[in-house]
């Protein structure tokens, strides 16, 4: 497992923010919420979740919009949005450095930022990515070189309660058996991520009290 580092509350403006580094991939996440909602996005029974993904160079393209929708789906699953009707929860993800496994890093940063903002969640989410090279060997949290030469990549998101799959995103071709292997590998990896969340929050609380 590659090294994972996090700082909570790096930014003063957002209600919750986190700077997360997994391996050499770095993502900054900021949460505002619940805040005033734009009239066209108003929902009367729950909060609308808006996700904004910013690449560090250039305008957001199709790929970035795709990340946005993945993260939005995950956030909607994890947040108890019925508690905040007629409001919106704004999630902003900023790519800082991309060396493979960006989505997984973004989802984890998002979860930590949500935790630090104190918004209600049904469960925590942990994302783990793995890549399969041309010999069919699976690499957990691969670096950029493995990521680029992989025949297939898998990103899974698990919940913290019963370790169900919240999201699964794959690219490339693979057999169903290989998928199962990748799933098991990532599920094991997710335990470490949840453990990491615990230490981060414990540190944060000990700083405060």
């Amino acid at each position, binding site marked *: 497992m590659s090294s994972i580092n996090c700082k909570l509350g790096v930014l003063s*403006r957002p209600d919750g923010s986190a700077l997360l580094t997994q391996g050499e991939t770095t993502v900054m996440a900021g949460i505002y919420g619940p805040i005033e909602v734009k009239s066209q996005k108003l929902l009367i029974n729950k909060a609308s979740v808006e996700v904004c993904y910013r690449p560090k160079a250039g305008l957001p393209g199709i790929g970035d919009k795709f990340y946005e929708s993945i993260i939005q789906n995950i956030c909607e699953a994890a947040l108890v949005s019925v508690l905040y009707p007629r409001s919106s929860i704004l999630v*902003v993800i900023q790519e800082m450095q991309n*060396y493979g496994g960006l989505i997984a890093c973004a989802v984890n940063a998002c979860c930590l930022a949500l935790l630090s903002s104190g918004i209600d969640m049904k469960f925590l989410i942990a994302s783990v990515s793995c890549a399969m090279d041309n010999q069919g060997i699976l690499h957990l949290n691969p670096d950029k070189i493995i990521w680029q030469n992989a025949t297939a990549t898998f990103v899974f998101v698990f919940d913290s309660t019963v370790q169900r799959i919240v999201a699964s995103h794959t690219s490339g071709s693979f057999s169903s058996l290989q998928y199962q292997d990748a799933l098991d590998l990532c599920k094991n990896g997710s335990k470490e991520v949840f453990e990491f969340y615990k230490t981060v929050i414990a540190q944060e609380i000990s700083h405060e009290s």
Partner: protein
Amino acid sequence: MAKIRESIISNCEKKFLIKGLEEHRRLDGRAFDEFRELHIEFSKDWGCCYVTLGKTAVLAQVSCEIQQPKSSRPSEGILIINVELSPMSAPHFEPGRQSELSVQLNRILEKCIKDSKAVDLESLCIKVNEKVWALKVNVNVLNHEGNIADCASIAALSALAHFRRPDISSDGEEIVVHTYAQRDPIPTAVHHYPVCVTYAMFNEGAVILADPTLLEEGVADAHLMIGLNAYKELCGLHLGGNALMTPQSILQCTSKAAARASVVIQQIKEALEKDQERRNQNKEFIFEDSVQFDKAASASNLGFYLDKWSTKQQKKRKNVKHVKEESGMENSTEDSNKGTVESFGKGSAVLLPPEDDNNWKTSSDEESESDIIPDDCLIKGDDKEYNKSKTKKKKLIK
């Protein structure tokens, strides 16, 4: 289209700020011509840097592509500067939309960096009239706590100075772009380092504040943004708002800004050197931010200790009365119950309050009063630091 409204500054906030300024105090305890702490960090990618000025945070990234030059300037490369106000910095900023602020910031940075010819555009030419490099500087504002212009100009300039474009070779007809692994990339030629220095004016130019925070920016009558390089050459001047200023005060500001600019440029150069060292050592690149992190932690800790003192104070008073009524305790032990001193960041220390069981030993109200002003709890380190933290602590208490 409906928009999330910007938070409004209330009248009492305004009055409080201005009253403070009349007493020569700023809300964050800085002197009028004092700037917030600047921190520059480079990423593993070429031309990417993360700059924080106080709490304002900005991420800049330079990218390049081959384009056809402008027909009016066939032998010059292209430099585009784009400031993006991300909704992360404040919820009322909309992504991908040009607001008045972002247009203004773009123009100021263009004036400061592009129009002052800081980057050698001719060296970006590949083939006259056909192909030149176009450098694009993307500045993402991550946290809006005032004075984006300074922070963004420092970030854009550091990113440009740090950036390396891929090497090319040409046989007259075809141009081959080599990857970073194939050939060493080429640094950008930067002639001089122009940075932006901002001042905010209050009371028709009577009060001039350096590096205004968000609140100060909102209350100020006018802003003066001065672009300067290390040779004290003016690279841009922008006066916004409605201050009736005398020419003298503008000249004064400019000379003050020149001193600041040279300090900033020195810091940029040091950061670049440090980055080079790190690359030579092949260290792992993550946004360490260690300095930044320690500061954030200590700032929150400071508040925590101060809170503790004030609650102690209340407790003490009750106890003191109690003691007085009963026996009029002696005060000979006061020296031993001053608590323990722990070192705390650079050049300062914190006096931890004594344990609960002996907190009533001070015998008069006056003494307990003097106890909470932690003059005696500061260990004199670096004199400047000492004074700064001292005034800060005092202010926080008051």
